[in-house]
């Protein structure tokens, strides 16, 4: 917690205009990204990916394979960056940590009864501590959407603050699950609550609910981050997750990030893509840039 910051009144109305946000978000898609800007953008997007597997049927073997892929995205293309992190369930953290070794790739673990968050607070805290004790560098928590929608903002605030405390040195990503909040006003309010309660990242979605990340929702959150930065001087990171599977869309997100928060956020400390299939699409585009022709999807590993 920052001692000097004033906690605003979360029951006060926020003003986000739906038409305006959607119009502005669509403007970023009109930017034409070519040549070296495109190449740099694709490399950067690759480096911002939280390569994710969050399934009941996950096995240690699958996680190990994913960790290998994280470090060797496509060895046919020398000089590629690694992804930013591997994102798994708490039970897989130990495996992932061992497989990644000292590669510099972070291990992110979902926690707090992901994805629904329907559990008592002490269970959520234990879940978080388990992930951290097993070596998670980052924790992706979900907020209690039911309480939030009821207007119990203090409950949500306190819960995030408690999880932040349980995280210790691990960075906390707070998933708002924007698909369940529905309106941009609520997304903005939840973003503000999360940031003031101690979030290091705010994140759109679990990927289990549709719609997941969209550009307008992400823009609302980026604007919240900018306003928070101006008020407190503290940078908060952003992670859109779910639904971003194409390179072109990822580049649009980067344009939006660059024109909303600027260069200071254009690296994987401050921005991530939560995605599983995005990496291969970017690899395909990079090979196309290099060789001039598209290659079949069969040339890219699916892990």
């Amino acid at each position: 917690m920052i001692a000097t910051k004033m906690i605003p009144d979360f029951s006060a109305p926020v003003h986000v205009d739906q038409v305006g946000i959607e119009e502005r978000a669509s403007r970023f898609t009109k930017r034409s990204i070519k040549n070296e800007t495109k190449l740099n953008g694709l490399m950067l997007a690759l480096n911002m990916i939280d390569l994710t597997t969050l399934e009941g049927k996950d096995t240690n073997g699958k996680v190990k394979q994913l960790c290998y892929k994280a470090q060797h995205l496509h060895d046919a293309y020398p000089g590629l960056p690694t992804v930013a992190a591997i994102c798994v369930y708490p039970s897989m953290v130990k495996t992932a940590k061992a497989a990644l070794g000292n590669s510099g790739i972070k291990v992110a673990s979902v926690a707090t009864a992901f994805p629904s968050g329907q559990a008592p607070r002490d269970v959520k805290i234990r879940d978080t501590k388990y992930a951290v004790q097993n070596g998670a560098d980052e924790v992706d928590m979900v907020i209690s959407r039911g309480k939030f929608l009821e207007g119990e903002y203090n409950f949500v605030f306190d819960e995030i603050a408690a999880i932040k405390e349980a995280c210790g040195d691990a960075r906390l990503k707070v998933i708002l699950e924007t698909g369940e909040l529905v309106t941009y006003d609520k997304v903005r309010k939840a973003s503000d609550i999360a940031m003031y309660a101690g979030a290091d990242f705010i994140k759109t979605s679990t990927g289990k609910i549709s719609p997941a990340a969209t550009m307008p929702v992400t823009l609302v959150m980026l604007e919240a981050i900018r306003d928070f930065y101006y008020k407190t001087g503290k940078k908060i990171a952003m992670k859109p997750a779910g639904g971003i599977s194409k390179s072109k869309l990822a580049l649009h997100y980067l344009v939006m990030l660059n024109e909303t928060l600027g260069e200071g956020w254009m690296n994987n400390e401050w921005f991530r893509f939560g995605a599983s299939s995005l990496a291969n699409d970017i690899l395909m585009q990079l090979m196309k840039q290099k060789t001039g022709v598209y290659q079949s999807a069969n040339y890219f590993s699916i892990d």
Partner: protein
Amino acid sequence: MAKATKNNTLKLKFDSARNLAPAPESKSAAKIDPQYDLFINGKFEKPLSKKYFATINPATEEKLSMIAEANTADVNKAVVAARTAYEKTWKKMPPAERAKYIYRIARMIQERAREFAIIETLDGGKPIRESRDFDVPTAANHFFYYAGWADKLEYAFPNRRTEPLGVAGQIIPWNFPLLMAAWKIAPALACGNTVVLKPAENTSLTALKLAEIIQEADLPPGVVNIITGAGATGAAIVNHADVNKIAFTGSTEVGKIIQRAIAGTNKKATLELGGKAANIIFDDAPIDKAVEGVINGIFFNQGHVCCAGSRLYVQESVFKEVVRKLKDRLETMILGEPMDKNTDIGAINSKAQLDIINKYIKIGQQEGAEMYQPSCAIPKKGFYCRPTIFTNVAQSNRIAQEEIFGPVLAIQSFRTDDEVIEKANNSPYGLSAGVWTDKGSKIFNLTTKLRAGVIWANTFNKFDPTSPFGGYKESGFGREGGLHGLSAYINLTT
């Protein structure tokens, strides 16, 4: 843990957002002839004046083509052609048949949209994104919309009989060359009038391309005549005895000259003149959207918009936030070659206009206003002006009173609703205004009290063929667009 920094010193950095790899639209997709003649009676004819003048690309100062200069004899030829076509063909044609021609023109504009967009940008300096996404599609929409009215005038004016006026002389400005031609020609034709249209001398090319389409569309000869030239040509149209109606869009100064010229004649007129629109932000507005609306309101088309929101009034409790966000937003704007698809601010239309804008920027500084411009680079060749905002402005400053017609914004703060209404109305102009608030009742309170022809609420610079557009006070009279736009081209006889 990050220490709280003094937040008014924090600044976001946007250099890389501005420096994208070039993404130019291809010039070769449009054909520009080395020389253009006058379009009279369905044919391109050499001017009797035997004179031509050059039209240049304001972004590079390169010559694009030579344009014929119509003299009084040429104007007379065009009016005679229009009169003959009116009496012999167009007036008698069943309205549904007229509509077919107008629909055909609309479709042909759509088919050749890319070519129109490229030429509009080369000739006028506006960003290709705007010509492609706004000017050309809106022009086509205008023809579509009025084509629909041609055979339904009895429903537009129930229980009245309508008849066309005759020959309409139409003079249009350089800021939206094709779109203004569409605004003028489409309703005139739908109501059964014939037309002599003169585009501005800086930007004649898309009107001449439209003439090519009109020729291809087999519109009966003489129904639309497009003649080119400068002020003298326009004066010859205004003063021609056989013209029944003058439709003019341009400066208030020329509008006054036209009114004097036609006083005592039977000529009807609609004038769409200058503006100095107030854009008003209340403290309960969605601020980020309002900022976006201010940017769109004043920097759209380099500020060459008669309804541009050039006076910004911000409620004092959000003044600092709005100005800070405006400055951030300015830093992300890409200024440069208009043909690049990423350009937000293109070239100023002419050297003369750039001189006027620079004169006002100097005046603003001399008046003691505080100027801010983003740090973007300006191309060496061509006419460019950085987007400019002034704070510490007084209502008595010239930059807050006079139309600059460029990317220059004057910002003032206000405290109460009544104060801002009074200040907003304190202008000889009354074309448009904008109101930003989350409160519906406040919107209605203001829209009934602001003396402006068009008032946008929580948006700005939105245009639609179905919506009337026009001014109060020295911003002119008559309406274009929508049902109201028909009244400007008909007589009600019963």
